[in-house]
């Protein structure tokens, strides 16, 4: 096994990775910016190196100083966490060149799946359904009519040069298409000086569903799905597994197709394939070639430590798990606790944490990096910790989450705890009758 791993990240995910390393007796190196010198990840790691000033570009994204930190500490591998350099193909390539193991897929695969257009082509080639639409701008009616044959209604027409909703048309029936297409073209010309429009499928009630993958040279397995449809401005707020709205038949088809695609591209490591789900159909969105924020819900239902398995695959090249080892039990929910004031349009709320009491108890997990007296700075993401609750079924998971949220005390800053309490009591959440734009349309607090 590796003797020493450098964690190129901060906050709760850095703490999460250090915990996994410690359990396996792997020495850890934390890197940090000047303002993070008192952070939890720095305190828990065996060694720490300050790599720059508060701005991410000067520290957590600063490849030359991170390379120096690796050399100084003789780390053998780098765990990038999520965000920052986790999907930076250039960073992975530099590490490959210097024979330092990047805990994740090869730089080639990161680059391939990081390019959204290329990823879509690959997904389609290996049999995943993609969001059909025009490849580029269209202005010819005949060409447009040919394209819509593959999409299915409703269809969205939007100006190629546009934005802000101008020149956007939703077409519900084929009869309406010609008329609306010509109007959209006219508007596009008027507002943006270019009559080209994009044509794509329009989603009225989309859910976000993703499949967790672990893949080695020997085999690819899936760890079932996560439903992350409670979002605000495309940022996930609550994630759960299993999805309350999928049938087993659809689920199994999705797993089979996803595993086939990931194994055929020769992927190594943990990854997530994200989909839009609507009306019993899936559409490939993108692949995240890293660990995700919401990985704990999968961990608690499957009993698999995803971070350790990432490290294992990085070291051995193979996964030690078989598909039959994955038997999820019960239901898990994660609430993201952000330093934001939900009553003031989610305004960031940095500051010093006063009293801090984190919930615990049966099947209750907190992944965080906060403590009493910790200063939440304004320089990084507002997510300060995550609360994960496991139940025999969804009802029990919700009951446990509500109990845990009630125990949670974070004084000195505003957090999303109160919002989560309201969401978990909301009839739309309880009946799982919502889509990804729910919180953008309805005011909860």
């Amino acid at each position, binding site marked *: 096994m590796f003797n020493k791993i450098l964690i190129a990240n901060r906050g709760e995910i850095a703490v999460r990775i250090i915990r996994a390393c410690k359990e396996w007796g792997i020495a850890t190196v934390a890197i940090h910016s000047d*303002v993070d010198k008192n952070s939890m990840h720095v305190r828990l790691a065996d060694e720490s190196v300050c790599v720059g000033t*508060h*701005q991410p570009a000067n520290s957590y994204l600063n490849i030359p100083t991170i390379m120096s930190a690796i050399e100084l500490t003789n780390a053998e591998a780098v765990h990038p966490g999520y965000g920052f350099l986790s999907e930076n193909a250039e960073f992975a390539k530099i590490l490959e060149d210097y024979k330092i193991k990047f805990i994740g897929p090869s730089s080639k695969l990161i680059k391939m799946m990081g390019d959204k257009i290329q990823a879509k082509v690959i997904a389609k080639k290996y049999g995943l359904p993609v969001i059909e639409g025009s490849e580029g701008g269209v202005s010819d009616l005949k060409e447009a009519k040919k394209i819509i044959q593959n999409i299915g209604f409703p269809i969205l027409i939007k100006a190629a040069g546009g934005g802000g909703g101008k020149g956007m048309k939703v077409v519900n029936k084929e009869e309406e298409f010609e008329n609306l297409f010509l109007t959209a073209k006219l508007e596009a010309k008027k507002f943006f000086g270019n009559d080209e429009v994009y044509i794509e499928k329009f989603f009225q009630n989309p859910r976000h569903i993703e499949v967790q993958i672990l893949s080695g040279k020997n085999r690819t397995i899936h760890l079932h799905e996560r439903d992350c449809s409670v979002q605000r401005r495309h940022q996930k707020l609550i994630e759960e597994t299993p999805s309350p709205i999928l049938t087993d038949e659809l689920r199994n088809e999705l797993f089979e197709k996803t595993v086939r695609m990931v194994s055929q591209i020769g992927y190594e490591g943990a990854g997530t394939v994200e989909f839009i789900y609507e009306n019993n159909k899936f559409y490939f969105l993108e692949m995240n070639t890293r660990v995700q924020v919401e990985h704990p819900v999968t961990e608690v239902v499957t009993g698999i430590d995803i971070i350790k398995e990432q490290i294992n695959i990085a070291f051995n090249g193979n996964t030690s798990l078989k598909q039959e080892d994955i038997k999820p039990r019960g239901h898990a929910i994660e609430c993201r606790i952000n*330093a*934001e004031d939900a009553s003031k349009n989610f*305004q*960031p709320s*940095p500051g010093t944490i006063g009293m801090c009491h984190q919930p615990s108890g049966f099947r209750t997990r907190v992944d965080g990096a906060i403590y009493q007296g910790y200063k939440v700075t*304004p*320089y*990084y*993401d*507002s997510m300060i910790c995550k609360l994960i609750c496991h139940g025999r079924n969804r009802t029990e998971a919700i009951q446990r989450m509500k109990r845990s949220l009630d125990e949670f005390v974070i004084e000195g800053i505003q957090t999303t705890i109160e919002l989560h309490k309201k969401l978990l009591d909301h009839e739309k959440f309880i009946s799982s009758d919502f889509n990804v734009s729910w919180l953008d349309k309805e005011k909860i607090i």
Partner: protein
Amino acid sequence: MEIDKKIILKLVQTLEDLKKSLKEIGINSKDESEVEEIEISGTVVKSPIVGTAYLAPEPGGKKFIEMGKKIKKGETIMIVEAMKTMNHVPSPSDGIIKEISVEDGQPIEFGQKLIILE
């Protein structure tokens, strides 16, 4: 004789840094009142939020404001980023930029002086 305003800014900054470090070890600076007196007349625009100041909309881009240039009420003076949220700081009135008190990328506190308008 022309006095380079940058040097004054730097001196004020150094003094503030010194005061901050003194405060951290529990010594209160006595000449706080003297510093206040140096302030030039005009409208002081303060930061509405703690964060990182950006003088241009993108790295290397054209700056929102320039010394000595006119600005209209409501126009953006600078961006203060807090937790990945970009907050545009609007000008409270029409005026001329007399002083830019922060540097691009500088961390700033709530209520810290950003610019002086005249």
